């Protein structure tokens, strides 16, 4: 049944794309551009249900997203743009349309620009472009660094950025920087609220708080070699209810570091990233069960791709995720070094049907199924029988963009 749906989806996408073009129109004397994208995916696993979908059995196609944006370049230096985004990923998203980002951007000089509003957060190679299926080799980016169920957590901030790019003297390449500050406000239909709701029946009404950080990337003198690092600090508070009583969480010390490198050469590209998220929070504060979560999540991957011709690109990555979890309840250590891990080996084929349409076919071979009080793809609610130690997944994803 699903194979017919996939085939129909691909054919429909191909036909629709034939009529797609970016639209331009005028409001007064200003030109406005309209662009959009959408994807439809299908995942079948051999055992564990994955990403809040019922992926075992006949698989699941509840894996759809879409975005639409308008932008206008008022002057060479000043630009205004906004994007609406909606998704449904298993139990997440629920098709709630949200302002993905909306900005006013003033570029004083190539080395100094200001961007304010709701701004996509630059973090590593792909955080700000993770939804753009057409631009990435993989149907699912390495989940150890870019978990799709936690997309909402770091995708954007409400605040402002200072950014720029400058050439370095003595042919040392160029650097690009982005420094930001603002607030993070998570959707209540994203991974962490769902984890709390489905595992301990805690219902959040708010999750977010101040964030600040930056990204520095260096286009090195070695042609097409890029190196970079990102940092984010945050002060999270959460509110909700638990068994009829108020539920709260608050950060003591939360930060993320990410280091990355990418090399491209003719038809090849190779990249690697390392991400460390340190979470020190008081969870269930104000209740007798309050405890201090001390969590150290480390993920990395090595991957690459080869463009065979204009229709086909092959790719692969090896991804590793490890969650060191510790905690104290009333001063007593309750969980210490309860490390969970996930190794994933992935192979993918990306078919570019035309300028607007891509189809990706991917195999995931995962060893480990972490589920330790923080979302990592596998949720207790969809796996009431417990988790098998390994999971193989077959992923197909079709994308349209114009």
């Amino acid at each position, binding site marked *: 049944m699903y194979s017919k749906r996939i085939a129909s989806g691909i054919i429909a996408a191909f036909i629709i794309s034939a009529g797609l073009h970016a639209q331009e129109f005028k409001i007064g004397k200003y030109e406005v551009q309209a662009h959009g994208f959408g994807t439809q995916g299908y995942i079948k696993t051999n055992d564990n249900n994955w990403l809040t979908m019922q992926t075992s059995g006949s698989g699941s196609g509840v894996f759809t997203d879409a975005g639409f944006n308008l932008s206008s370049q008022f002057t060479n*230096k000043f630009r205004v743009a906004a994007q609406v985004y909606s998704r449904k990923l298993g139990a997440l998203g629920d098709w709630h349309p949200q302002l993905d980002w909306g900005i006013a951007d003033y570029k004083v000089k190539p080395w100094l620009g200001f961007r304010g509003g709701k701004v996509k957060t630059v973090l590593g190679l792909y955080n700000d472009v993770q939804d753009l299926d057409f631009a990435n080799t993989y149907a699912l980016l390495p989940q150890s660094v870019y978990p799709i169920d936690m997309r909402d957590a770091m995708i954007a901030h409400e605040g402002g950025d200072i950014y720029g790019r400058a050439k370095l003297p003595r042919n040392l390449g160029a650097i690009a920087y982005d420094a930001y500050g603002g607030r993070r406000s998570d959707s209540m239909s994203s991974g962490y609220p769902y984890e709390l709701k489905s595992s301990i029946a805690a219902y959040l009404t708010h999750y977010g708080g101040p964030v600040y950080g930056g990204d520095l990337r260096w286009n090195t003198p070695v042609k097409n070699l890029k190196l970079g690092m990102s940092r984010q600090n945050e002060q999270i508070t959460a509110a909700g209810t638990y068994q009829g009583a108020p539920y709260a969480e608050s950060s003591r010390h939360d930060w993320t570091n990410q280091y990355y490198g990418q090399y491209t050469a003719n038809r090849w590209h190779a990249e690697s990233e390392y991400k460390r998220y340190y979470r020190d929070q008081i969870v269930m504060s104000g209740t007798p069960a309050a405890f201090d979560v001390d969590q150290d999540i480390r993920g990395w991957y090595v991957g690459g791709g080869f463009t065979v011709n204009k229709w086909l690109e092959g790719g692969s990555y090896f991804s590793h995720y490890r969650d060191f979890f510790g905690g104290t309840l009333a001063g007593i250590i309750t969980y210490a070094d309860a490390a969970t891990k996930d190794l994933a080996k992935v192979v993918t084929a990306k078919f570019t049907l035309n300028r607007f349409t891509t189809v990706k076919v991917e195999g995931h071979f995962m060893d480990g199924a972490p589920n330790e009080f923080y979302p990592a793809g596998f949720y207790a609610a969809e796996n009431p029988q417990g988790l098998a130690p390994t999971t193989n997944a077959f992923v197909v994803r079709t994308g349209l963009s114009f």
Partner: protein
Amino acid sequence: MKKFLSVLLLAASASIFVVQAKAQVIVIANPSVKASEVSKNDLKDVFTGASTSLGGANVVPILLKAGTAHEEFLQAYIGKNDTAYRAGWRSLVFSGQGTMPKSLDTDSAVVEFVAHNAGAVGYIGRATLHEGVKVLTIK
């Protein structure tokens, strides 16, 4: 032997054709652009959205929608095919970091636009008349 020589001749002709073809695209700019000579890297940065300046002045890239000059320009200076090139621009558009450059239908439309808009930089086939614009030398 004859067959070998024929193949050799064909290969030589093909390579001459490629060299000639590469020379068929020129980069033009509005006279307000101070630079007369730009490096291949700087040109690539402007046409991929990584940079908005040439020689310290703000510039705006203008594209051709398709055609020989477009394909040659991408091959010679960007190193990507049209699909990958436009995907790069759409990444900037969908992440809020840029606006898609204007794409025009013909070489003469590019000349017309570049001639009348300060900071505009484009590319055309060498045979196209290009009055009112300056030709940039690529180092």
